[in-house]
């Protein structure tokens, strides 16, 4: 969706200027996006049935208790005023306090964000090289049994839903073999080795989830670049197949490959609630879902803002890298 914003013509500007001007435009557009997102989320949460007071009290909600709690939480103020008040804080870097736990949201959010980044980063560190290698090997042996086998395995991995592969891994590695812990509850005071041990199974589950998509897209991008006539030239020149792939095919395939990697990174940031739940991992997704069910609007907005910002920045990064790696875009057509 962000591609549309990135491809306006930039006239005769030089490569570096084009890059900076693109980044500047995109950052401004991103800020506007964030504003729109926060407004949409606030409106959406206000449309949901029930409010924070009834959601917290649940079955124990008597009219008197609800009224008392609403006063305590400041929910007697008009919605528009509450939104502006929140926005005023955010502009000054203050996410406010949680409606329900009175915790400072910035502190809690940062803790959770670090955990999510750690999980997503570790997954990417494993998944990206493996996916690239699989894609590369598939193309090198295109049509052969290695290609078919890799295709079969990666597609199977994509087809497995995460809650299933997660439980399967728990069953094998924690319950049957007892090698790895089934709960990944990481703590601030944990040594790095214990942390890595704790997240091994969720990382494996997530790698299975994103690997197929990334390797298949790498393979497709490489194959389509391979069909160009300059590749025929390179082959006719007598270059070895590896060299053709490495020097001539890959540089022209980077754009789509990086795009799919970044899309998957974005997914790892925002779409891992199920994995967090199965492995009891204290990430941002769980925090946000909890807060939605309790209608804790400032927390949901804080989470959404951070996740949207990450998403926008990742996309910006993808486009910038595509620009840098593709000489044709860089120098203008």
């Amino acid at each position, binding site marked *: 969706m962000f591609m549309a914003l990135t491809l306006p013509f930039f006239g005769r500007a030089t490569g570096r200027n084009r890059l900076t001007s693109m980044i500047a435009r995109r950052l401004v557009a991103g800020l506007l996006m964030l504003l729109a997102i926060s407004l949409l989320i606030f409106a959406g949460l206000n449309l949901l049935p029930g409010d924070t007071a*009834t959601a917290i009290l649940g079955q124990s909600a008597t009219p008197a208790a*609800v009224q008392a709690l609403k006063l305590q939480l400041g929910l007697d103020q008009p919605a528009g005023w509450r939104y502006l008040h929140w926005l005023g804080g955010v502009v000054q870097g203050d996410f406010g306090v949680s409606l*329900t736990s009175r915790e400072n949201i910035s502190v809690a959010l940062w803790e959770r964000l670090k955990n999510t980044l750690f999980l997503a980063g570790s997954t990417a560190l494993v998944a990206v090289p493996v996916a690239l290698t699989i894609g590369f090997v598939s193309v090198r042996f295109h049509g052969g049994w290695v290609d078919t086998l890799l295709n079969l395995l990666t597609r199977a991995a994509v087809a497995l839903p995460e809650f299933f592969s997660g439980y399967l891994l*728990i069953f094998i590695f*924690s*319950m049957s073999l007892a090698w790895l812990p089934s709960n990944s509850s990481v703590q601030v005071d944990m040594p790095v080795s214990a942390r890595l041990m704790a997240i091994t199974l969720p990382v494996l589950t997530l790698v299975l989830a994103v690997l197929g998509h990334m390797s298949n897209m790498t393979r497709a991008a490489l194959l389509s670049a391979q069909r160009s006539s300059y590749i025929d030239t390179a082959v006719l020149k007598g270059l070895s197949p590896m060299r053709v792939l490495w020097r001539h095919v890959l540089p022209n395939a980077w754009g789509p490959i990086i795009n799919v990697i970044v899309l998957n990174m974005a997914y790892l940031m925002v779409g891992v609630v199920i994995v967090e*739940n199965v492995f009891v991992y*204290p990430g941002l997704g769980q925090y946000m879902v909890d807060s939605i069910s309790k209608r804790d609007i400032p927390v949901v907005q804080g989470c959404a803002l951070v996740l949207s910002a990450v998403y926008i920045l990742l996309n910006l990064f993808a486009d910038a890298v595509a620009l840098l790696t593709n000489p044709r875009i860089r120098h203008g057509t």
Partner: protein
Amino acid sequence: MIDRRSFIKGTGAIAMTAAMTSSWSLSSAFADEPAPPKKGGHLIIGLDNASTTDRLDPAFWFESWMYFTGSQLFNALVEIDDKGEIVPSLAESWSSSEGGRKWVLNIRKSVQFHDGRSLSAKDVIWSLNHHRDEKSSSPVKGYLEPVTGLAATGEHEVTITLGEPNVEFISLLSAVHFVITAENEAFEKGIGTGAFILESFQPGVRMLVKRNPNHWNPERGHVDSVETLAMNDSTARVAALISGSVQIINRVNPRIVGRIEKMPSIQLVRDKDSQIFTLPGLANLAPFTSLDGRLALKYAVDRQQMIDTVLGGYASLGNDNPVFPSSKYFSRDIPQRPYDPDRARFHWQKAGFDGPLVLSAADAGFPGAVDAAQLYQQSAKKAGIVLNVERVPDDAFWTDTWLKKPFCTSNWGARPTADALLSLVFTSNAPWNESAWRVPAFDQLVKAARGETDEVKRRQIYHDVQVMLVDQGSEIIPLYADALSATRKNVRGFTSVPGVPLSGNRAAEKVWLEG
């Protein structure tokens, strides 16, 4: 006859003597006495119903995770023991006079809070008033509504005056929320007198505590540290227990209990009758306005099938009676209503209700509610009753469906007294009268029982109360569900407290780790 005061003083004294006698002499005196609790070790517990919105303030304890973690830091005035009796905790003895209108509590001396302050009557007043505040939304505010006076009548004496007599008032104080913190202190700081001291509290993630070396009760607090993890996924809890990364879990899914029970490293803890599942029908709407309509629906439910199918057999038959079998006033002589399609048909025709009845079901009402509703639909069909099951969302269930739709699903946990649940849900002006069933004669009985000092008479009144609910009430209570917890085999000292799961929420301080 021994009066209540001297009797309770007596038991308190026995408990103290037992506590002061060293465990060595006890174990040597009785050869087959179990080994004394082993000290030390790190206990890890995985519980559900945790949320990032949890708070240490007991006025905001709504679910099992907070009940259990809060009870590690704080003590209440009284506790419930393994036999369901009220026993001393921070109140070492108590007495009532004026027919249950005036209560005097003697607060235990030389008890220290975690920060070194000593416990006095003032702390008790402060902590109880926390729930009485006008602005409070505490779930136990109603228990203290009859209180007209709450005063420190001595350094270690608290006097409570009630507007109307309640001979069981002391039992209400065993509710998990009535814990004590130091005067003028916020509960959020976690400063209690409990067996464990707060190290870190991360709502929705975990709580870590270490043993309180100055704890007043030498029989509690055996492990060095306790970690309570938020594990809302039931499969994740079971997997963690089997793989040994936690030692205690709660709410085992009844469908897999059979498999867990066979595992050599795991023991199942079955707390019988800890919760009722209810199907309240609004008595001010047809067909519930007619007694025949209510009876037809009571005969049309196949209770045993519901127990076997929805709960894997881990429940016992309910008789539309909200008094729990663990209560001393439970009437065992009321005949169990059978599943009888013919009688249901007879009453349904007499009620003359035409048009389908809609049952709004969500698992938020009770786990397995949607399945139960579908079973009910089938069994009612055989009696010619058309019951349409409407599946409603869990989200906002308690706001939009419960108390609003004519027929829905709900549940209640066991309460400290029979009266607590009756006056909370079943009397005319009860705040959560979920069936809108309002019968003045019933209210009279409940009120009379509350103030009746004669045990025999009170038993008779409660019997009449239960007969009335079984025969006329507008709620179907098909079953009493068990609470199912499980521990690793090396966890010892985990006892079952009637009506309160996880050893009365105090498993952390009661258990020790063997080997």
